[in-house]
């Protein structure tokens, strides 16, 4: 106790230094984790053909886990981008790409299936793509090609 009282100011300084070190250390760890994440998983899918208004199709998205540890998929979604080629049929109105969407997966949604991807393994997640059947002319979307860009989150399986 006598020692602490005598060197209170010094100890406080050291404590602050230690706190700073912890903060910096943690920050550095997080930066390393996000900047060069060894667990970053990849998603791919083969071409889904024959999409038409009101006709939902399954998109088998293949999730690859490069980590040696199993992971549980939390979310998986895709954005849709319309490619310029092939172009819309002559005279057709522009394709409203906002009407084409992939239904996202969310593990926390009611009734959602659970997808555990084994370490260094793959798992197919069946997503659904749907072109809404609307009252306006959708000929501009006939015979077009789209890119699906996937993004998702996962956590280490417990």
């Amino acid at each position: 106790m006598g020692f602490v009282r005598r060197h209170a100011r010094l100890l406080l300084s050291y404590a602050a230094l230690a706190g700073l070190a912890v903060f910096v250390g943690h920050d550095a760890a997080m930066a390393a984790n996000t900047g060069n994440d060894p667990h970053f998983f990849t998603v791919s899918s083969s071409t889904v053909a024959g999409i038409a208004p009101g006709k939902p199709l399954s998109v088998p998205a293949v999730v690859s886990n490069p980590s040696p540890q199993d992971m549980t998929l939390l979310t998986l979604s895709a954005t849709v981008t319309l490619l310029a080629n092939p172009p819309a049929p002559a005279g057709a109105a522009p394709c409203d790409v906002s009407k084409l969407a992939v239904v996202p997966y969310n593990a926390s949604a009611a009734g959602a299936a659970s997808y555990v991807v084994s370490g260094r393994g793959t798992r197919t997640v069946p997503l659904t793509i749907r072109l809404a059947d609307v009252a306006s002319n959708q000929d501009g979307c006939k015979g077009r090609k789209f890119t699906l860009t996937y993004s998702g989150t996962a956590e280490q399986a417990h």
Partner: protein
Amino acid sequence: MRKPVNVRSFLNRKTALIVGAGAAIVALSGTAAFAYWTTTGSGTGSATTATSNGTIVLHASFADGLTPGASTPVSFTADNAGSSSLFVGTIHLASVTADAGHASCNVADYTMADVTSNTTAAAGATGATLNGTGTLTFADTAVDQDSCKGATITLHLSSN
């Protein structure tokens, strides 16, 4: 009498304490960061749309008793068994046939101009009423048209 402090020893102890504590906390922090990780993923795929999605079945109806030189209105309905709504722009009379018992009837005497409909037949619709009314005309020609008496005339339609 105050006991003299061995500064070197004191600093060594403190340094060791601080370094040890800091390392322990950093180690704990590191353990917390990696023992239970979350991660993200990305990738690409592709999709293509169909060039068509099914066809529509058109039906025409008109009154019995058409005679040479007369005309009758024709109404239209459509069946769409597909999953997409289909649009009927213009209805065109592609051909006309008579029943087998009236094979010699000159069906070229039956004509109908194109009908603008511009109607959307909803997916799964059966017997959906289409806009537009046609006019079926039975031409009065100089030749004997008795072969068409009592014939059942079928109109074969197309649309775009």
